[in-house]
């Protein structure tokens, strides 16, 4: 028994191929059902996002399982040939496959390291697999562990801290000037794409009141309607600045639209409540002299970009700590899987010994004829004592080795020595029929 993974991601495959192989939410149940029936696959999970398509499975034979899973991958899209897909696939097994899943859940394998979506996507993939009953003991444990590793990495390292886009960096900065953005007013000067993007970020951060002005007033009206904002005529917006806590300037003007005297006036009528001015236009629309005024905080696009670059570097540094966490979590799962192989052997060995004991007692009782209850008890006791004493050390040794890398070797040797293969087969068929009945 082993865990294997086959997949492709944003590094190994072009976006066109990823799009063709992506398993949409609607198709997922059918794809999982098919994976469950696929030859050589005991358990399976499909993780499909815009950056990756990955299959995780529990198989009996590693080589055959990887082969089989790769074949399945090709069948996801009707119109791709194995030759197109194969070169982009990575195939992992055992500890490598587990580690890969942990890294994915921890957002270490993402295009933007530390991005928050992937953990949710792993959870969704797992829930879909649970719903489709395509997982079992092993994947349930491994995927749950991956999710908890992902959470741990997010809380214990700074991998997900700090903004990595210009608009979001502006929102983060605003939160360090104003405690409660919901009570604040944003004035958007210029209704171009950049401005709208920034406005959208502020609105989703809780800002309720947005004013929009534009040289072309019709456009201001149009955008204002979409954002549920108030349009302001361009030649009047300087008056509105006193009421604006955050000013986002993104016009296409080739000279300054806001000068220090405008801001000074606004600050005065605001009684020196701070103002946050963001200049995301090129060339600059806000006179840099504004930044020297007390209680006015001016950031231009280069400042914000610099902040973003610093945050990305910071995330990369934090990623090293995250890798340590992932590395530390893999061995316990690998050992748990090893112990899974030992436990059935122990059960089978006990079972077999009890069978022999019972059969031999019956045989000897038939030969001995009438015995007093005390004598019968003694004979049974003797038989039990011999089997127990004989089994004592092998059982202890098996249990002790269950967690070690030698676990499966010990299990196999025991199976050979005591001829337990048939016993194990019987047990697994019993348990699967029992599972079938429960389902």
């Amino acid at each position, binding site marked *: 028994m082993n865990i294997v993974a086959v997949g492709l991601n944003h590094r190994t495959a072009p976006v066109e191929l990823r799009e063709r192989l992506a398993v949409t939410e609607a198709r997922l149940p059918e794809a999982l059902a098919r994976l469950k029936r696929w030859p050589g696959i005991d358990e399976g999970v499909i993780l499909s996002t815009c950056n990756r398509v990955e299959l995780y499975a529990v198989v009996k034979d590693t080589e055959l399982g990887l082969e089989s899973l790769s074949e399945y991958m090709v069948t996801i899209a009707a119109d791709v040939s194995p030759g197109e897909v194969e070169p982009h696939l990575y195939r992992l097994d055992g500890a490598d496959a587990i580690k890969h899943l942990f890294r994915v859940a921890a957002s270490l394998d993402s295009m933007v390291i530390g991005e928050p979506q992937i953990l949710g996507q792993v959870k969704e993939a797992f829930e879909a697999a649970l719903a489709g009953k395509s997982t079992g003991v092993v994947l349930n444990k491994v995927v749950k562990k991956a999710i908890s590793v992902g959470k741990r990495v997010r*809380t*214990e390292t*700074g991998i997900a*801290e*700090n903004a990595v886009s210009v608009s979001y960096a502006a929102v983060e*900065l605003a*939160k*360090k*000037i*104003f*405690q409660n953005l919901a009570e604040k007013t944003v004035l958007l000067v210029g209704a171009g794409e950049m401005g709208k993007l920034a406005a959208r970020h502020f609105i989703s951060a809780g800002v309720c009141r947005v004013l929009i002005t534009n040289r072309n007033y019709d456009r201001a009206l149009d955008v204002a309607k979409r954002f549920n904002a108030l349009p302001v005529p361009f030649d009047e917006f300087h008056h509105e600045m006193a009421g604006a806590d955050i000013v986002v300037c993104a016009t296409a003007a080739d000279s300054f639209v806001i000068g220090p005297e405008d801001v000074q006036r606004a600050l*005065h009528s*605001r*009684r*020196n*409540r*701070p103002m946050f001015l963001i200049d995301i236009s090129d060339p600059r629309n806000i006179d840099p002299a504004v*930044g020297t005024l*007390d*209680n006015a*905080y001016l*950031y231009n696009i280069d*400042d914000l970009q*610099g*902040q973003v670059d*610093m945050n990305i570097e910071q995330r990369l540094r934090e990623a090293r700590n995250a890798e340590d966490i992932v590395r530390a979590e893999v061995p316990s799962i690998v050992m748990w899987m090893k112990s899974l192989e030992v436990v059935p052997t122990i059960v089978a060995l006990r079972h077999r010994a009890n069978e022999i004991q019972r059969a031999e007692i019956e045989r000897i009782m038939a030969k001995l004829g009438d015995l007093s209850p005390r004598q019968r008890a003694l004979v049974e006791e003797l038989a039990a004592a011999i089997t127990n004493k004989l089994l004592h050390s092998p059982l202890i040794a098996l249990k002790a080795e269950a967690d070690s890398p030698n676990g499966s070797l010990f299990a196999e040797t025991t199976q050979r020595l005591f001829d337990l293969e048939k016993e194990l087969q019987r047990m697994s068929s019993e348990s699967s029929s029992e599972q079938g009945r429960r389902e």
Partner: protein
Amino acid sequence: MNVLFFEVTLLLYFLGTALFLTQLAGRWEKGSHASLAVAGAGFFFHTLALVSRMIEAGHIPLTSMHEALSFFSWALVLVFLVVELRYRVHILGSFILPLAFISLISAAALPKEIRALEPIFRNVWMHVTLSLLGTVAFAVAFIAGLMYLIQEHMLKSKHLDGLYHKLPALDFLDELNGRAISMGFPLLTLGIITGALFAEFARGSFLNWNAEQIGALGTWLFYLVVLLGRVTVGWRAKKAAYLTVVGFAGVVFTLVGVILKG
């Protein structure tokens, strides 16, 4: 008994200060619960120390500089715990705990014996308590102002690292500053009035122009101007932060003068 509790408190505040200062330098999540627990435990023992001292003395223990500083430190930690539980501004502890510790260790250096209270001083505790609570409020305003100036500097210089992430938003600090002043000022006013009444009653004159009284009146006038400026002409944000930092420096200066003289 009260001395033992006092010493345990001193130890806990030292430990708390150390923990809060390491957090200021290092990553945030680690140890924040530990430092809060230590501060809480310190406050608990401090309360025990004050209560047991009161029982032993048989009157409210606010008759010596040692007792005044100890009470000041206790009230500071109380304010921190309240603000922390209400607003979750953990970093406040990194500023308040050191101040509480300094104040308590100064108290430890002063004569600790319980003084027998002359009957005439029976009601002096009211004046002392009000003045001290006013000073605690000014200390909080000072700390809010200090944090404001640091954060303001970070934002202006666009050096957005380290403390920037840990300090709260500017307007929160300004609000805290304003509230502390508007609570501290009436407390100090009442403290001065009760003090004058007491002096009139005990000595027959409510003002005799000693250093302590001049210091108190100067402080009162200063904060009056700060408060009026805030309400009328918008002395808020950076200016208010500066003024409260400078003002508290004046308060400490006066206090040290009184201690050295007396």
